[in-house]
């Protein structure tokens, strides 16, 4: 799939706005627990998180240990997923790599969400020219073919984990901004905002205390779905040689490295590929489940 799958964001906007009829969050949570798919997603993610935490305990080998004499060993009892072209144990690398790949994903999404939320809130709340200015700038970001934006950013900042993260994060900004703006517009119209305004609250209080908490659900849903995309995008950048610096076992880098052996030693690419796919799948399922959970209509 394409790098910048702007997943169903319109759907998210329309489906998950907090209609503060009831506490979305609590209800959402309970429905989430009952939503089997979301549970599966959550379990997958949890599994990965545990792997990331306990990688040093789980990994049978040093993920950085180059043993050229062991290179390209197919999966065996010694090396469950085989070894790569430098004789490193793929399983150990994948275990350690979970930290990097999830780290990139989570940091990038937080980065994108942070700026996106601020821009979206300001645009949505103040409206008028502020809104149009901000949203035009977001349009500019969005109109950039995403991978090219990333390419340019990475060329400018140099490759490396942090910069890949920023690059994919930047591209997430307009997506969050759009969703947040849409939700803000919707929540802004609600009467409790007018009520708090007529009590004399200042804009900061209104925006951060009264609007933001009530638009969290679409943000969270977008965040999880975005995480999936971001991880894939980062892998895509690695494919173009713009990813993490060696010898870090970032999955996208491993995968792109493995493409040289796609036909001769496919396991080098298959396992990191699977690791990515399953994690992305987890986030997608989870995000979907969340969306259902927060969707007010699911509760009738």
């Amino acid at each position, binding site marked *: 799939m394409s790098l910048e799958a702007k997943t169903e964001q319109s759907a998210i906007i329309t489906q998950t706005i*907090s209609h*503060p*009829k*009831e*506490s*979305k*969050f609590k209800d959402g949570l309970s429905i989430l627990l009952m939503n089997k798919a979301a549970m599966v997603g959550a379990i997958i993610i949890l599994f990965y998180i545990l792997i990331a935490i306990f990688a040093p305990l789980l990994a049978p080998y040093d993920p950085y240990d180059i043993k050229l004499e062991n290179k390209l060993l197919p999966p065996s009892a010694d090396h469950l997923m085989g070894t790569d072209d430098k004789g490193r144990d793929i399983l150990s690398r994948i275990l350690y790599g979970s930290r990097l790949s999830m780290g990139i994903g989570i940091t990038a999404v937080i980065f994108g969400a942070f700026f996106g939320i601020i821009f979206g809130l300001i645009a949505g709340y103040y409206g008028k020219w502020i809104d149009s200015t901000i949203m035009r700038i977001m349009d500019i970001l969005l109109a950039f073919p995403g991978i090219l934006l990333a390419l340019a950013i990475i060329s400018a900042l140099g490759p490396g984990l942090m910069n890949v993260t920023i690059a994919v994060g930047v591209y997430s900004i307009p997506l969050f901004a759009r969703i947040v703006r849409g939700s803000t517009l919707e929540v802004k119209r*609600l*009467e*409790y905002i*007018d*009520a*708090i*305004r*007529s*009590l*004399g*609250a*200042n804009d900061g*209080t209104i925006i951060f205390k*009264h609007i933001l*908490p*009530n638009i969290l659900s679409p943000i969270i849903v977008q965040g999880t779905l975005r995480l999936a995309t971001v991880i894939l995008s980062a892998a895509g950048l690695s494919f173009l040689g713009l990813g993490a610096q060696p010898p870090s076992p970032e999955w996208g880098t491993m995968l792109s490295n493995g493409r040289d052996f796609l036909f001769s030693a496919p396991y080098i690419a298959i396992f990191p590929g699977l690791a990515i796919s399953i994690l992305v799948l987890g986030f997608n399922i989870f995000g979907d489940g969340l969306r259902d959970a927060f969707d007010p209509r699911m509760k009738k």
Partner: protein
Amino acid sequence: MQAAAEKKVLLKVDHLKQYFPVKTDSLFKPKAYVKAVDDISFHLYEGETLSIVGESGCGKSTTGRAILRLDEPTGGKVFFSGQNILDLNKKEMRKLRGDLQVIFQDPFASLNPRQTIKQILNEAMAIQNVVEKPNRMSRMLELLGYVGLPAEALDRYPHEFSGGQRQRIGIARALAVNPKLIICDEAVSALDVSIQAQILNLLKKLQHQFQLTFLFISHDLSVVRHISDRVMVMYLGKVVEIADKKALFDSPLHPYTQALLSSIPVPNPTLKRERIMLKGDVPSPINPPSGCRFHTRCPFATEKCKAEEPALREMGEKHFVSCHYAEKFR
């Protein structure tokens, strides 16, 4: 409460206009506007209830919002206790907001679902700083007492209450800052009749207790009749009639008011009335009809009505009507 001549005017609305720009398809055509409120004037005496009635979209809420400066009015003046509040800067306005409060229609939408009742009330007091911190708790309990909610309510979230209870919380929030004027925008329309009755009773009680002034916006004429001292009828952004309740209900002078009154279904099957049927729909406020805005639906319209906009004329004791032929309907 019959208003005596020396009654103090609390709020005076003077040639208020509120236009909303609408997007047009054309690049070249001048901008079009929804003239939601188009040059209306009225005033409110201290301690009275003035109701605004009229059909959907006639500008009732817009009037209320403009007075509260929730939207910035396009033109006109709004004097509160003699001061034009449209001249105030943001900070001064924030300070004044303690005197002007609002209760909204939707009991579900008017409370932040993520705040407990305690936080809601506390915040109101904190923003206006009307009560010292240590005294807030007792004040909150007092407020709950006024609106008839138990003390346990404080730690609960809005969704744990029924619609009527939520409306009470909204009222408590409005009262928390000791306002002088409360604008009730369809404050009971969303409630079932039995709960509606409770809230209406409560509002009346509180009005007496605190000398509150109400601007009561509603399209339910029986409710309006129950609660108001005076009634103002709006049609397409204009005031068509304004009078004491009795005068208005007993001898409406504007054909629209008459039609409106006769359209209300009355829960009394024995009462078979002559109904004035209006034809057609309410015209768009973007392109309001010329002359008298009601002429397109008025059974008595003449050429004059089409051409000439009628002025709001005093036809009796504080009874103002904007109709060329008001005399005929006396």
